[in-house]
C-alpha cells in the first residue's frame, strides 16, 4: 500500500544477536575458577520470593555485565556506537514486556492497550518521572512513536504518518493505523520493543527537525545522520535507576526514589561490569561478582559447576540456526538440491552437538517458531501430515539420493555432480567466534561429506563473515531463521522469505513458483503474501490458512533450512539476593535482571 512497505522495511533479525547467544571466543580473557561440585540447581518447583521483610534500602549493588567500555557508553537509541543492549531496560522504561513462555505482553510504560479496527489506544502508566524531576507525559510517548514512524522503522508498516499519532490527554495516546485488520499479536509486539528514551530536554530539537523533514527522504536522512552522531552528556532516564558514574570497568546507577516501582526495590545500586568474553561472565557468576547476566551461551558442564545458589533461567529465543543457501548459485537454486541436503543433515545430531541442553530440533521446517512449546502444531492444525519433515533425527541417504537422481544429478567418484559434471557446492561459511555454530558446522559438514557432497567448513572472523554475507560471496552460510523477539508467524515467516537478508543477500527471488498446499504448483508473490498475512487479524481461520500456506511454501522451497531453535540462558545469583527459581513463569521475560526487580521478585536478601 504505502511506498514504505518494501522488502527492506520488514522486521529483521533479533536484537539479541549472535555475539552473546553463541560462545564468543574472540578476545581471550581471564581464567575461571572451579565451581563447587554441586549442581547449579534449576529448582524443582517454580517459586517466587515473598518480598522484602522490611523497608530498609540496603547499600548493596546488583551487578550485571556489559560488553562495552562503560566510560564510552552512551544511551541515544539512534546512535549505534558504544551501545549496550540491556542498559536501556533499567535506565529507561520499556513500553511493554513480553513473556516468552506465555507469549503474552506485560505492561510497562504502557499500562493499557487496545486495538479496535484501525484505532489503537495506549494508556501511559502513572507516576513516571524523568530523573531530572520532570514528569513523563503522553507527549513523551507520542514523540517516541512519531520519531519511529518518521525514521522508517517497522512501526512504519502500520502507521503512515506521524500525524496519525495524537495525544488525547496527559496519559493517553491514540494511533490511527493504516489498516483495520491487524491482529493484536501482530501490532502490539512491535511497540513493545521500544523504550521511553527520548526526553525533550535532550532530543527536543531533533524531534522538531524530524517532524519538519517528514516526507522528504533526503531531509530525514540528514537529521538521521545528525541524530546518529549525538551522544547526550548527561544521560537522562526515567527508569528505576539513574546514571551515577562510569569508568573503564564499571557503570554505576543509583536507585531513583520517585519511580513508581521504588517501593519494591530495596537496594541502592545497579551496576554493569565490563566483560570481554563469556568466560569472564561465567567467572563473575561463579565468583559472586556478577549477580544477574544478560543472555549468555553456557555449555552444560559450566552450568553444572555453578554454585547451588545460582539460578539458571532458560528463555525460548524464538530464533535459531538455519542453513542459508545462496540462490544466486544455479545449482543451489534448484529446490531438489536443497531438499536433498535437508534429508542428509541430521538435525538432531547438530542440536546435540551445539546446544545439548538449550536447543530444540526444528521438527517441521516452516518458519513457525515455538519448537519448545509446540506452537507450530497449533498453526498446522490437522494438516501437519502434509508437510515434509526431512528426517530430523537421522541422515536419510535414500530419500536424498532419490530426489537428486530424479532431478538429474548423479554420483561420480563419490561426489554428487550435475549433468555437466559440476560438483554440488557445499562450502559452509561460519563466523569463527560463535563456537556453537562452529560445532554445528562441523556436524553438518560431516553429514554432507558422508553422503557425497564435497563439503567443508570455512570460518571467517565477524567482519569478514558479514561482509561476505552481504555481498553474496558464499555458497552456504549459517545464519538465523526467525525474528527472535516476537512469536507471530508474520514476523518469522516474513523474515525467512521477505527480509533483505534473504532477498538481497541470499538472492532469493521475489516471485517463486513452488508447490502449493492444495496441490499443484503456483506462483507466489512473496511480498504480497506477507503483507496479506499482517491484515488477517479479524479472521482466525483465514489467518491460520495463510500461515499454513506460507509454511508449506517454506517447507517445500527451503529458502533457508531451519535446523535448531534455541533458548537463551540467563543466570541470577541467590547469594545475598532473593530470586525466583529458574522455572518460574514470571522469570520468562527478557531480560530477568532488569524486569524482575521492578516487580519485587528480585531484591536484596541477607
Amino acid at each position, binding site marked *: 500500500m504505502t511506498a514504505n512497505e518494501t522488502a527492506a522495511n520488514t522486521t529483521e533479525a533479533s536484537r539479541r544477536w549472535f555475539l552473546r547467544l553463541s*560462545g*564468543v*571466543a*574472540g*578476545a*581471550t580473557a581471564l*581464567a*575461571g*575458577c*572451579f*565451581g563447587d561440585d554441586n549442581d547449579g540447581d534449576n529448582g524443582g518447583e517454580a517459586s517466587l520470593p515473598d518480598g522484602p521483610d522490611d523497608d530498609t534500602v540496603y547499600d548493596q549493588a546488583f551487578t550485571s555485565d556489559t560488553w562495552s567500555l562503560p566510560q564510552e557508553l552512551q544511551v541515544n537509541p539512534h546512535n549505534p556506537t558504544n551501545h549496550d543492549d540491556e542498559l536501556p531496560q533499567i535506565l529507561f522504561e520499556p513500553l511493554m514486556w513480553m513473556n516468552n513462555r506465555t507469549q503474552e505482553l506485560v505492561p510497562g510504560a504502557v499500562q493499557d492497550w487496545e486495538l479496535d479496527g484501525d484505532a489503537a489506544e495506549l494508556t501511559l502508566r502513572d507516576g513516571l518521572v524523568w530523573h531530572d524531576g520532570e514528569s513523563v507525559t503522553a507527549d513523551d510517548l507520542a514523540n517516541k512513536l512519531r520519531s519511529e514512524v518518521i525514521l522508517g522503522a517497522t512501526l512504519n508498516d502500520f502507521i503512515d504518518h506521524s500525524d496519525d499519532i495524537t495525544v488525547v490527554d496527559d496519559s493517553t495516546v491514540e494511533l490511527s493505523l493504516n489498516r483495520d485488520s491487524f491482529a493484536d499479536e501482530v501490532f502490539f509486539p512491535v511497540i513493545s520493543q521500544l523504550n521511553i528514551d527520548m526526553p525533550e530536554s535532550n532530543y527536543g530539537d531533533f524531534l522538531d527537525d524530524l517532524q519538519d523533514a517528514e516526507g522528504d527522504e533526503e531531509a530525514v536522512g540528514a537529521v538521521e545522520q545528525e541524530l546518529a552522531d549525538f551522544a547526550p552528556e548527561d544521560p537522562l532516564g526515567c527508569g528505576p535507576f539513574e546514571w551515577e558514574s562510569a569508568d573503564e570497568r564499571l557503570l554505576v546507577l543509583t536507585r531513583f526514589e520517585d519511580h513508581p516501582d521504588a517501593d519494591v526495590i530495596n537496594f541502592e545500586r545497579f551496576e554493569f561490569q565490563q566483560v570481554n*568474553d*563469556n*568466560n569472564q561472565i*561465567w*567467572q563473575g557468576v*561463579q565468583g559472586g561478582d556478577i549477580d544477574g547476566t544478560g543472555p549468555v551461551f*553456557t*555449555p552444560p*558442564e*559450566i552450568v*553444572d*559447576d555453578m554454585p547451588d545458589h545460582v539460578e539458571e533461567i532458560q528463555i525460548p529465543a524464538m530464533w535459531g540456526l538455519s542453513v542459508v543457501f545462496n540462490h544466486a548459485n544455479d545449482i543451489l537454486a534448484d529446490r531438489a538440491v536443497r531438499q536433498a541436503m535437508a534429508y542428509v543433515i541430521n538435525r538432531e*545430531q547438530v542440536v546435540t*552437538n551445539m546446544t*545439548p541442553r538449550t536447543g530444540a530440533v526444528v521438527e517441521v521446517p516452516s518458519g513457525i517458531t515455538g519448537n519448545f512449546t509446540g506452537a507450530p502444531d497449533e498453526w498446522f492444525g490437522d494438516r501437519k501430515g502434509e508437510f515434509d519433515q526431512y528426517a530430523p533425527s537421522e541422515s536419510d541417504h535414500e530419500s536424498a539420493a532419490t530426489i537428486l537422481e530424479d532431478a538429474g544429478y548423479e554420483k561420480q567418484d563419490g561426489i554428487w555432480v550435475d549433468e555437466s559434471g559440476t560438483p554440488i557446492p557445499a562450502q559452509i561459511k561460519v563466523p*569463527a*567466534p560463535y*563456537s556453537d555454530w*562452529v*560445532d554445528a558446522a*562441523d*556436524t553438518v559438514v*560431516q553429514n554432507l561429506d558422508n553422503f557425497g557432497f564435497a563439503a567443508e*567448513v*570455512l*570460518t*571467517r*572472523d565477524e567482519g*569478514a563473515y558479514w561482509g561476505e554475507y552481504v555481498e553474496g560471496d558464499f555458497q552456504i552460510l549459517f545464519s538465523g531463521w526467525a525474528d527472535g523477539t516476537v512469536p507471530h508467524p508474520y514476523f518469522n515467516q516474513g523474515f525467512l522469505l521477505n527480509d533483505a537478508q534473504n532477498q538481497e543477500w541470499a538472492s532469493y527471488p521475489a516471485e517463486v513458483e513452488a508447490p502449493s498446499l492444495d496441490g499443484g504448483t503456483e506462483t507466489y508473490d512473496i511480498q504480497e503474501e506477507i503483507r496479506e498475512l499482517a491484515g488477517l487479524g479479524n479472521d482466525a481461520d483465514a489467518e491460520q490458512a495463510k500461515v499454513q500456506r506460507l509454511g508449506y511454501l517454506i517447507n517445500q522451497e527451503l529458502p533457508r533450512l531451519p535446523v535448531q531453535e534455541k533458548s537463551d540462558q540467563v543466570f541470577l545469583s541467590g547469594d545475598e539476593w532473593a530470586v525466583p527459581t529458574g522455572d518460574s513463569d514470571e522469570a520468562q521475560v527478557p531480560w530477568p535482571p532488569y524486569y524482575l526487580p521492578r516487580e519485587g521478585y528480585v531484591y536484596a536478601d541477607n
Partner: protein
Amino acid sequence: MTESTRDVTDGGETVGIESLGNDRSPFDQVSETTLSRKERLQQKYDRLIVAPGRILWSDWRARVGAAIILLYVLMGTVGVWLTEPTQLNDAPRLLLPFQDWAHPLGSDGNGRDLLRLTIHATPHMLQMILAGAVFTTAFATAIGAVSGYLAGSATDRILMTMTDIAMTIPGLPLVIIVAVALEPESAWLIGIIVVINYWAGLARTIRSQVLTIRRAEYVEASKTLGLSTRSIVTKDIIPNVMPYIFVNFVNAARQVIFASVGLYFLGLLPRVSANWGVMMQDGYTGGALLTWSAAHWLLVPMVTIVVLSFGLILFAQGTDRIFNPRVRARHAKSTSDENTDDEEESTATPVGAIGGGR
C-alpha cells in the same frame, strides 16, 4: 672459530677432529689432487656428519631434544598413517583422559578423540614450522652473509637499512593484520606469514658474525688466491656461521609455533579442525578453565605445544656446545680472539628474539 683446527673438548677428552667445514688452512691442507673422489667424500662425511653426530650424542641435552623432536616427526608421519582421523561423536562428550583406553587422552566437547586429534594436527604444524624456519633462516643468512661480507659498501647499507626497518616494525601486529587480510589456508603460507619479519634480528646476528670471520686469515688467503666472492662466501663464511644458522633455525621454529598457536587461539586464522591452537580455543570457550570436566581439553594441546618447544630449545642448547667450544673454555685454554672490536656480536649463544615472544 678462527683457526683451522680446534680441539673440541668434551669433559676433558679431546675428540680431535678437523674444524668443521674449514679445509682451507694453508698449512694443514692436504692437496686435493692426492685424494680420490671417494676419499674426499669420505672425509667430508666424517667431518660433517659422523663427528658432530658423535658429539651430539654425548650431550644429554641434544640427545633428549632430538628424541623429542623425533617423536613429533614420527607422530606427524607414522602416527597419521596408523590412525584414523577422528570424527564428531566418536566418543562420549568430554570423556576424561586415562578412563578408556580406546581414547587415552579423553575426548572434547563434541566427542572427538583428543589423542587422534593431536596426532592429526601434527603434519600441519610441522609444515608450518618447516616453511617458516626455512624461509626465515635462508633469507636471514643470505642477507646477513652478503651484507657482512660486503660491509661498508652501498649494498651493505641498503640491506641493513631494510633489515632495521623490518626489525622495527612490530611483529605480531603486522602478522595479525596480514593474516586477517589474506586469510591464508595453506600451511606453508601460514608458516611464512607468522614469522614474516622475524628474519631481521637473525640477519643482523649473522652479519656481525660474518664480519668477524671476514678478517680471518683463511679468508684473506682465499682472497689472495683470487677466489670469487661467491666461492668465498659459500665455502669459507657460511660454514662458519653454521652454528648460528642452526640455532636460529630452531628459534624460528619455536617462533612459528608460538605465533601460529596464538593466532589460531584468537581465531584470527581460518579454522582448521585438527590444530593445537584451535583445540585450545575450543577448550577455552568450552569452559575448560571453569570446570575440571573440561580442563583436559585445554591442557592436552597446551602440553603438546610446550613439550615440542622444549625439545627444540633443548636440542639447540645441546648443539651449541658442539659448535662453540669456548663455552667450555674455562677449563681448556682455547684459541684467542683477535677481534675485540666485533666481539660484542659474537655471542656464545645467539639468542634471537626469544625474550617475551612476539
